[in-house]
């Protein structure tokens, strides 16, 4: 199995729904032809360095996957047929990859990502809690200060 990286530029004027069905179609082809999707990176709308099909912007998507030659030719054939794809490019990353090892690596990365997200969420929640506590403390302190102040003023007056 080989590792490939395909970048394609989709129509920037496409609605989100149409775009997601389009992406699902390509993912389906990947699955059919026995490919393993390692990473699906949506770069979003970017300015093109030169106009393609009279469009100066494009929706970039970068896919990294493991697969074989026929998969790439099938994928590129669908790209060519689809007029919502402005341009595509496939690059060979690695010539020989063990499919099982790749799957394991992807799973490990996925779990690491979810764990990282969970940790991040937890940290944020803790930070928020700490912030809330701090605010509560400061407001309490302010209240205490308010209550204390008049007394001191009175004391001062008495001394005078």
């Amino acid at each position, binding site marked *: 199995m080989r590792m490939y990286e395909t*970048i394609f*530029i989709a129509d920037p004027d496409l609605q989100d729904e149409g775009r997601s069905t389009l992406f699902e179609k390509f993912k389906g082809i990947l699955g059919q032809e026995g490919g393993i999707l390692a990473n699906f990176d949506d770069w979003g709308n970017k300015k093109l*360095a*030169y106009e393609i099909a009279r469009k100066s912007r*494009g929706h970039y998507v*970068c896919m990294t996957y493991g697969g074989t030659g026929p998969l790439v030719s099938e994928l590129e054939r669908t790209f060519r047929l689809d007029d919502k794809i402005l341009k595509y*490019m496939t*690059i060979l990353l690695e010539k020989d990859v063990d499919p099982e090892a790749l799957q394991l690596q992807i799973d490990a990365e996925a779990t690491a990502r979810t764990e990282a997200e969970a940790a991040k969420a937890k940290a944020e929640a803790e930070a928020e809690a700490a912030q809330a506590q701090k605010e509560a403390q400061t407001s309490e302190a302010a209240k205490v200060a308010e209550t204390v102040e008049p007394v001191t003023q009175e004391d001062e007056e008495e001394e005078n």
Partner: protein
Amino acid sequence: MAFQKRNPKKRFFQRRKVCRFCADSTLEINYKDAKELRSFITERGKIIPRRITGTCAKHQRVLSTAIKQARTIALLPYVGKLN
């Protein structure tokens, strides 16, 4: 050297250029990083020769492929505009 000997006044001192990618091994040449690659092309979009940038032969080869790949996918221009 011969050139320097003939014109000792004109080419008095020329700083030895070092390959940026050899000096810092953490730097990686990636065709997706258009911002980094832009420093190796002219305003017209031409690849700057390595006698100007000081890049070593090995890295210049990788660099030129990266620039050409970036051009293919419209991250860099084939023909840049002046101004």
